[in-house]
């Protein structure tokens, strides 16, 4: 419950925190995600856990999350990215990209891609967040 705790971001999601939601993988994985992404309404932020992997030497696992975001009408992707990166959640002193799950993990990478329409014209901002277990 992080992004939903950012008042400005929720406001940008038409005031409905449920417009920020997790995508749950189900078998066959991939098929339902493709459909969810293709039909992602606006404004929405969909969170997906992508994969665990080995972290840097001496660390535990690495975890990658992706956020797929579509702004509301009149908002730009830059506005949305700014809210996600720079807003702080209620009760949290530091921004999303710098927080950690607990004392045992730390953020390793925070990247985003230029929104580009896919073959079907659906466009979204993708933000990847990787954290490493200590």
């Amino acid at each position, binding site marked *: 419950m992080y*992004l939903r705790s950012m008042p400005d971001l929720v406001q940008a999601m038409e005031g409905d925190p449920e417009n920020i939601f997790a995508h749950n993988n189900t078998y066959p994985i991939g098929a339902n995600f493709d459909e969810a992404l293709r039909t992602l309404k606006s404004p929405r932020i969909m*969170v997906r856990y992508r*994969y665990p992997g080995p972290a840097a030497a001496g660390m535990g696992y690495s975890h990658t999350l992706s956020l797929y975001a579509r702004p509301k009408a009149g908002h730009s992707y830059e506005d949305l990215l700014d809210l996600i990166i720079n807003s702080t959640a209620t009760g949290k002193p530091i921004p999303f990209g710098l927080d950690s799950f607990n004392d045992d993990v730390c953020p390793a990478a925070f990247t985003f891609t230029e929104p580009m329409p896919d073959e079907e014209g659906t466009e979204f901002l993708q933000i990847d967040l990787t954290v490493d277990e200590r």
Partner: protein
Amino acid sequence: MPANDREILIAFGKNKQDDLATANTAAAWCAWAS
């Protein structure tokens, strides 16, 4: 192979126990972020 299928192979283990552990991990991380 589609990118998502590659992720399946990476994300999910070779047995049901691994799959369950990965699913729990995924749910926990998604809950944290959203």
